């Protein structure tokens, strides 16, 4: 045995020559925190910072995608469902407080399209801020748990799981469109004014929302990182790579996947909830099939199995999208599709694996020339 073979590994981080291994992750985290909480708010205009807040919401979804898809092998092409549930739960609460602030009992759209002058029963609990906040995370997690329980037990996986997820995203957005009187239909819940007593028109409060989102992202990354290096993280990778073998070790891989799926749904729900104050709207168009694919492209391009790769990928792709879709609105969709195919087909580890791939290629070349074998 020689040591020329470089492991093609997501679970094993390649050693860095300059920074000691032990300090690499904390140092990177501190750098990220300084950039997000210190540098960006100073350098960016209010408008740009608000855009970044939106991208960071996508990055929060990507944290979950990285866990479920990157580590768990679950192609979660329907995260729009959970993003939407979180977003609507938050928006319903904010619409109710907006209405209460002007002395109304019904949100504006219900007064226009509604059939009566009473609030639907399922809206009522969302007036309570604690309930609404809890629901932004618990509702998506509950739906994911129910769905996952049946799907993973029946060993639905791969493309079938992806198609099922997509269908669910389509179904939810179609249902929302049909319920004009209680959900705002195609328009969604729009024109949100306040965020727990703070006016969202005020740029200072918009900055506060940005800080909340950035902090949530950083905390989630710490949590996800802990999960990645935990025994559960190892087991998840094992279940991804050889489900049958895991079963013969006495585990039920369905449960392992379920945990990853539910946590990813929770992250997407939280992202949806934070998206609402940042952007001021949640609508079916933001949670259907196309945005659901959008949620995973960033992770795929950046590197789905690498937490940092997925997060940076999500931010970069969202930034590219808003830059390019202004200039070439028609071309973006094609480019998006192309990116996805290229990343999944030719660079499954995403840009995060580029270093490893290149190093391996170089090593392979060196091995060939010296005639040495591993």
């Amino acid at each position, binding site marked *: 045995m020689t040591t020329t073979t470089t492991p093609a590994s997501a679970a094993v981080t390649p050693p860095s020559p300059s920074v000691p291994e032990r300090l690499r992750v904390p140092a990177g985290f501190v750098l990220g925190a300084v950039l997000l909480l210190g540098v960006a708010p100073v350098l960016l205009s209010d408008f740009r910072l608000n855009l970044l807040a939106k991208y960071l919401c996508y990055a929060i979804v990507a944290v979950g995608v990285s866990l479920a898809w990157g580590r768990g092998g679950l192609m979660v092409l329907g995260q729009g469902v959970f993003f939407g549930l979180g977003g609507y739960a938050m928006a319903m609460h904010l619409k109710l407080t907006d209405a209460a602030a002007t002395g109304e009992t019904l949100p504006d759209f219900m007064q226009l399209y509604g059939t009566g002058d009473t609030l639907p029963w399922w809206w009522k609990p969302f007036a309570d801020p604690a309930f609404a906040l809890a629901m932004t995370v618990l509702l998506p997690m509950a739906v994911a748990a129910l769905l996952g329980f049946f799907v993973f037990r029946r060993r639905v996986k791969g493309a079938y799981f992806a198609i099922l997820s997509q269908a669910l995203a389509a179904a939810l957005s179609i249902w929302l469109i049909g319920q004009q009187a209680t959900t705002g239909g195609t328009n969604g819940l729009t024109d949100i004014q306040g965020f727990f007593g703070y006016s969202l028109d005020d740029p200072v409060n918009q900055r506060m929302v940005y800080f909340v989102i950035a902090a949530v992202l950083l905390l989630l990354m710490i949590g996800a990182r802990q999960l990645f*290096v935990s025994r559960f993280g190892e087991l998840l990778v094992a279940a991804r790579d050889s489900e049958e073998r895991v079963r013969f*070790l006495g585990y039920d891989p369905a449960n392992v996947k379920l945990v990853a799926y539910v946590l990813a749904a929770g992250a997407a729900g939280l992202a949806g909830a934070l998206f609402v104050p940042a952007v001021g709207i949640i609508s079916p168009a933001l949670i259907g099939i196309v945005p659901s694919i959008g949620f995973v492209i960033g992770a795929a391009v950046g590197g789905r199995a690498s937490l940092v790769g997925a997060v940076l990928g999500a931010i970069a792709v969202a930034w590219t999208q808003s830059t390019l879709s202004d200039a070439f609105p028609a071309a973006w969709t094609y480019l998006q599709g192309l990116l996805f195919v290229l990343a999944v087909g030719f660079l499954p580890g995403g840009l995060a694996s580029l270093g490893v791939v290149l190093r391996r290629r170089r090593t392979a070349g060196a091995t060939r020339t010296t005639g040495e074998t591993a």
Partner: protein
Amino acid sequence: MSGEGLTVRDLRVTFDGFTAVDGVDLDIHPGDLRFLIGPNGAGKTTLVDAVTGLVKAAGSVRFGDQDLLGRPVHKIARMGIGRTFQTATVFEELTVLQNLDIAAGAGRGPWTMLRRRKDIPEPVAKALETTGLTHLRDRPAGVLAHGQKQWLEIGMLLVQDVRLLLLDEPVAGMSHDEREATGALLQRISTDRTVVVIEHDMDFMRSFARSVSVLHAGKVLSEGTVAEVQADAKVQEVYLGRTTQPEPAPATAVAVAEEA
């Protein structure tokens, strides 16, 4: 001799009308090192699949006093029955240590699962030593040599603390030295566990088996010690035949065996 024995009665496995295992009876006592041999298609692997819950089967399979048939794979595994596959299936992206640690952990609670591994659990350290993989502890399993992967799989069964090991062609593709090492490993293991080995390699079987069952066309053809089985005329006919008596009869029998 601790542990339970495996008792198989009238086991039948049928795939779309084709009967792969056709009424097999087996008694494997605690501490045995039993070899299952037989031509391709004799039903050896299917038998192991049935015992471990991978395929549906009729009849009865008992381990100690517990029924196995009809239970899901992971429940059977937790009862102390482990297996390997013809192609070594280890978690290639994980290190040797991680592979073993996962195998040791089926009973862990959620709190332990969510934390990072702090030190090497005792059974894992022992299995590293038994299988001679200690120096490769931090290597990804994917870069191990073929024989080392097989040993890692056996090590995983050891930390799983299985009482019954079912090994599907563990020495296939191994060098002579690796075979000898594996045989010695199996003999060490089987002092306090029961080991069943599916094997094609006759030399390996002769050197290490304590008892042998010969399967042919889904049935048990012969059973006993190596010497008894080798002396059995039926076995010579279907399987070992050509080496002892170069007569026309075995030739046709071999043809039949290859068809099956």
